């Protein structure tokens, strides 16, 4: 521990600056404690109690400023002192006329016709803020997770009672009045409404609908727990109701993982009552229940999107296995897999979107058997260590164990880059499967992030006589700011096969990994 005490005679700085100096010094690494005080008699006592009193300070008067620092070494003290000098001489202004509200109430005073509050504070404070907003008659988009189910129920009940939308908790995506809230893609405005408990599910469906030349009227995110038994589908049912009443909405899509049976019933009843064409995907579930309610069911996000567009055109929904011809796909898979060693057999799916990862598991399981994951279809397929793949593995890298203390993998590619190289080193890896999500909330240049580790992994594998295959799907539209065409081109130039949907990317990966042996099964698949 080392100490430094400086006396600046006759030095007056206003309390805001003194506080800034104090805060900035204590943030310097290695600083144990700091005191920034005027040299009054009592402050000298204070310094003595802190063991920071020196001769110069004893002599100082109340018009002198004392800066006392205790740190682990000289270097830290020097850094701190540089900060002090900078702040003492800076002409930085604080708030210059612009009012920055500190509470919801004062924000509403500044923006009196506010109609939506976006909340992303830590979970333990989130329901408090959301409740305040709902009580003030504002709709809520609640990004925060780790909100209790009890609180979620209360919030949604309060919202429904007041005719408000309560999107979340744990809602990352919505499109309201053609404005993207949170993560999401720029899509044209149109006549298809979505209610979704799945963020990247909403993204994939909305972007494919856009590609099919249709548009989105409203896409309501409801958070991952809405269709659980306790929450009972409160917001999904409310969302269906709102879209049913919305004159701009002509068809409705519902996206979720399979709900509790009773909840499923109520949701499907509500869907039927809407008197509009409805397509439902309960990802990984069966279609009987859905079809019993005279509502269209789809098994993949792509099929869901194309089904609703077909209905809008008065056509029958069909299933897509691949958009390209069978022989084209088989030939492609062949060229990818022909240089595999006999050891290379596994798929490693590295996902940023949880729903996309789930869809991969749903599609791969009937084709390949056991697929390990950190969010597996069955508990027995749970990865012991999320950072270490086993056999066929699809990892959701947006899961909590990867995101504690760091940004989401859609924005920060660090962990995924490292993982690509690690998977490449495994002699059993055949195909690396990736989702590339663009749009709001995502990295500005995903291709730029992915290409270097892909090249590195390829080169390293090549040295050991292995060829790696990379398959990806870009979730986005031509309206997104990352420039989808350019992203696609760059990935393709780096040897990545870019498929038009996650489902197709997954199927192709399976075909490649099995060296074409599942072709018949694949092209006749039931789901």
């Amino acid at each position: 521990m080392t100490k430094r005490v400086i006396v600046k005679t006759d030095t007056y700085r206003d309390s805001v600056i003194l506080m800034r100096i104090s805060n900035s010094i204590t943030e310097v690494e290695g600083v144990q404690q700091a005191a920034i005080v005027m040299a009054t008699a009592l402050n000298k006592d204070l310094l003595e109690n802190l063991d920071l009193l020196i001769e110069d300070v004893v002599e100082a008067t109340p018009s002198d400023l004392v800066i006392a620092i205790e740190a682990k070494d000289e270097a830290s003290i020097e850094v701190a002192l540089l900060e002090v000098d900078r702040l003492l001489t800076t002409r930085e202004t604080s708030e210059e006329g612009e009012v920055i509200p500190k509470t919801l109430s004062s924000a509403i005073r500044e923006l009196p016709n506010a109609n939506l509050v976006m909340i992303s504070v830590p979970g333990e404070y989130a329901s408090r803020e959301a409740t305040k907003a709902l009580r003030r008659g504002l709709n809520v988009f609640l990004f925060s997770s780790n909100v209790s189910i009890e609180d979620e129920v209360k919030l949604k009940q309060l919202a429904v009672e007041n005719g408000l939308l309560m999107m979340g908790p744990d809602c990352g995506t919505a499109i309201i009045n053609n404005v993207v809230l949170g993560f999401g893609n720029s899509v044209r405005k149109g006549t298809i409404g979505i209610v979704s408990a799945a963020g990247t599910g909403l993204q994939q469906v909305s972007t494919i609908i856009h590609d099919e030349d249709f548009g989105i009227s409203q896409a309501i995110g409801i958070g991952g727990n809405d269709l659980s038994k306790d929450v009972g589908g409160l917001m999904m049912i409310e969302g269906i109701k709102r879209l049913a009443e919305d004159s701009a909405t002509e068809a409705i899509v519902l996206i979720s993982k399979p709900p509790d049976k009773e909840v499923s019933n109520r949701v499907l009843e509500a869907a039927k009552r809407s008197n509009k064409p409805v397509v439902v995907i309960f990802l990984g579930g069966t279609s009987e229940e859905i079809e019993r309610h005279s509502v269209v069911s789809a098994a993949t996000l792509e099929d869901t999107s194309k089904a609703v567009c077909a209905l809008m055109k008065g056509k029958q929904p069909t299933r897509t296995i691949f958009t390209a011809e069978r022989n084209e796909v088989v030939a492609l898979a062949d060229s990818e897999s022909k240089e595999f060693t006999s050891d290379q057999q596994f798929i490693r799916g590295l996902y940023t979107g949880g729903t996309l990862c789930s869809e991969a598991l749903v599609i791969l399981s009937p084709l390949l058997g056991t697929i390990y994951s950190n969010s597996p279809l069955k508990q027995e397929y749970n990865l012991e260590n999320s950072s270490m793949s086993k056999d066929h593995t699809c990892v959701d890298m947006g899961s909590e164990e990867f995101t504690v203390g760091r940004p989401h993998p859609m924005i920060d590619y660090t962990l995924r880059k490292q993982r690509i190289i690690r998977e490449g080193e495994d002699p059993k890896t055949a195909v690396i499967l990736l989702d590339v999500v663009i749009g709001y909330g995502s990295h500005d240049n995903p291709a730029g992030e992915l290409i270097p580790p892909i090249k590195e992994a390829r080169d390293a594998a090549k040295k050991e006589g292995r060829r790696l295959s990379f398959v990806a799907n870009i979730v986005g539209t031509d309206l997104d700011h990352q420039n989808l065409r350019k992203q696609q081109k760059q990935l393709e130039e780096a040897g990545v096969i870019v498929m038009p949907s996650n489902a197709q990317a997954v199927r192709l990966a399976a075909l490649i990994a099995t060296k074409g042996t599942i072709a018949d099964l694949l092209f006749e698949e039931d789901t």
Partner: protein
Amino acid sequence: MNDPTPKNHPRENMTFRDNFSAVSIGSVAALRMTKGVEGQVHSVFRRVINLEIPNEGLISLVGSEIGRGPLYISVEIPPHIDFTTISVERGDRVIRDENLVKVSANILDISLENAVLWEPMKQFSDIVAYSDIESNLTILLRLATRFGNHSDLYQLLKCYKSFVDDDKELTELNPVSRMALPQVMKLLDAIKLGNTENIVQSVMKLVGLGPGLTPAADDFLVGLMLSIFYMAENSNPGKIRVQDALNDIQSCIHGRTTRISEEFLLQAAIGNGNEIIQTLLEALLTSNKIDLEQSAHKVMSFGGTSGIDMIIGIIFGVNMMLSDAYTKSHLF
């Protein structure tokens, strides 16, 4: 360093004189800065220049966004102006020539032509019942608890025993709160009992304590003094001898703290506070339509942590006066 002769030299690179209009002048500032009076610049900040008037005291030239106060000459200044950049320096000569305050000869002129006199209002109309004052105080306590955590004296609020576990030892206090707390408790008891010696002893252990150009404990005392003054003027339960207490506190201010803080303390001891504090007290004590939360937020955003410390002082002061009215204290 302590050269008493005022500087009065022309600035070489100056191209024009800055000329502004005062919109208001506080009653004490008006008394101190009469026509013909001369003084010196004491300190210069971005939007404030403090002037020392010999045999009178400090007054402040402040940007009008700071508000009005007994020592303030509030001046209409464009938002981008920063006084620290216009070559006004500590020690520069100041003179009031008719209705013009001339600072640093040829650098800065402030016209008092249209300045309206501002006097603190010490008596309010429509005072509410004690139970309503207590409700308002609880709101203020909630706001201080929610937003006040960057002040070193924030932890004094842990003294609300009825809300916190009684037997929890207050060992985790930061150094400033740890030094202040026993003195604050001693001071409040001494005020209640009229014990001059203890008032003086505890105040001598508070004035000058804490970070800030106006040390934290000083701001606390300003809030405390103004709140008991205003309660006594408007809603006095009768037993506490507020005027005596204020006299006692006043006697131990001089020389123990920064010049600027000393002035605020001396003014508070005679019931003179800035307009934002006056408005907050009015919101606490009356049914006049003043938004308590809004006025509290205004005070809390004042001067770093000064406003919060003043509010903590107000909370302790009003609570003490209320407990004087009731036989048992509800809050402490």
